């Protein structure tokens, strides 16, 4: 009885709100509800699917997510493998946790003050004579390639992966595996490239996958450091929802529904096609 109540409570608060929100978004996108609704229509879906804004936004979000994850994972692997002993004890073992105290919005503010045309780096470049005018400093904020967004997200995510990899290094008994490989004649490079890195990446594959999706849906950082076109998907959806043009609201819900369908399909394919992939998370 207690188990049933607990599971009903869990489903009620973890799944029902998402399902209700999704159905409301579907109804709104089909013109079945909302201020301007006038019956069932597919026009909002047609408008969304035929406009390039949505595809650009999805592509841009995926681009940012993949670049951020690649940079963060490479940095985290390098730091974990080369600083392993220092990360276990001493001041570095404490300091590595400090970046986790930065909320995304504070990291975005810090990056803005550091990288913008009137930011700290621009001032340093000016005082060193590298640039003479503010305009000569490169566009790193609100730029087309999302340099500021990538920089901020890497600052937020890399420490997390350093901690994850250094914990995995010990939990997965990698030192013993490395020792075994060395005994069998593997060189130091072979141990790193063929033992350590593959084990760490395989064991963290699920977390990496989750982070790709998490970065794709991130909001605060692209809101402050990104540009209007292209913009990351969550920013685009919220901007369309909060604009004064009421006709944009159904399109915002259509985009949200399509995004949920895409992510849901990817997760479902992985869950049923490769259940082993999720096993680490469930045990």
């Amino acid at each position, binding site marked *: 009885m207690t188990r049933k109540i607990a599971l009903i409570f869990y489903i009620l608060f973890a799944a029902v709100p998402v399902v209700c929100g999704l159905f409301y978004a579907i109804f709104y996108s089909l013109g079945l509800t909302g201020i301007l609704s006038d019956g069932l229509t597919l026009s909002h879906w047609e408008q969304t699917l035929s406009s390039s804004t949505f595809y650009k936004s999805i592509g841009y979000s995926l681009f940012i997510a993949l670049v951020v994850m690649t940079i963060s994972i490479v940095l985290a692997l390098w730091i974990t493998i080369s*600083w392993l002993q220092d990360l276990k004890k001493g001041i570095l073992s404490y300091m590595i946790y400090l970046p986790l105290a930065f*909320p995304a919005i*504070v990291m975005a503010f810090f990056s803005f003050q550091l990288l913008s045309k009137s930011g700290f780096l*621009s001032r340093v470049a000016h005082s060193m004579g590298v640039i003479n005018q503010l305009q000569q400093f490169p566009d790193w904020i609100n730029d087309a390639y999302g340099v500021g967004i990538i920089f901020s997200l890497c600052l937020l995510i890399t420490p997390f992966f350093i901690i994850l990899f250094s914990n995995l290094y010990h939990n997965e008994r990698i030192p013993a595996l490395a020792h075994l490989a060395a005994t069998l004649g593997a060189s130091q490079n072979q141990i790193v490239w063929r033992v350590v890195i593959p084990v760490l990446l395989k064991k963290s594959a699920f977390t990496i996958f989750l982070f790709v999706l998490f970065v794709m849906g991130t909001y*605060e950082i692209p809101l402050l450091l990104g540009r209007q076109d292209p913009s990351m998907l969550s920013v685009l959806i919220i901007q369309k929802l909060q604009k004064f043009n009421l006709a944009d609201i159904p399109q915002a819900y259509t985009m949200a529904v399509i995004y949920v369908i895409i992510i849901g399909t990817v997760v479902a394919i992985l869950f049923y096609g490769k259940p082993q992939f999720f096993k680490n998370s469930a045990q």
Partner: protein
Amino acid sequence: MIKRICQLFFAISIFFAIGFLVVISLGGNWTYPALLPATVSLDNWRVMLISDSSLWKAFLQSMLISLTVAAVTTTAAFVTSKHIAHSKYRSQLLLLSYIPYVLSPVIIAATLHFFFIYSQLSGTIVGVMLAQFFIAYPFGVIILNNFWNPRMRSIEELALTLGSSSWSTWYKVLLPISKNALLLCFFQTFLVSWFEFGLTNLIGVGSVQTLTVRVFSFINEANIFYAAIASCLLILPPMLLIWLNKRYIFNTQTLI
């Protein structure tokens, strides 16, 4: 040698970020191309924390919301995670916990906003707490899920075999040995709530002024000095929690 230089650079970078925010918060009249603000004093802090009570109010409101969300989430997640861990549908149920994160909290808030308006919870502290609970609760379940391992089950069964009632087993056996796991869950869900901006801003519709919302407002007003003060207040509790977490929980934590 190169390793030491890299480590030094890494350490300086972390302290630079914190020091940079503190210097801006103390500054005034920072015109381009000056490297540092022309004036550095406690005036900004004095104005924000003594003369103008709105930042204190935002800080206390954020603290109230985050502590409440963390306490309720930890309690609910502790009870439900046990039943999920012992369920034959564990993997499927746990998958639900990841939904708020893979779909982005702010997108979920956007789709749920109508229900909050309809139930008159939009723009209220209770509404923001409930919305944050939708995000923090699944996270709490993920954190506590691994705690309910076969060893814990054996301890529970042993207590029941020795005649302990179901309530006594929870209260006198499971709760004391779960202290560290519960603290960890509390800290983590507190941080989820404390860091939340998009969802809070959307459901709170500007009426619920948390510190993250205040930082955003100050940035929008181009008031970088006050934004830096609010940022400093925002990173202070997490730093304290991370230190406590590392000092007293990670070092003794063996169950998670």
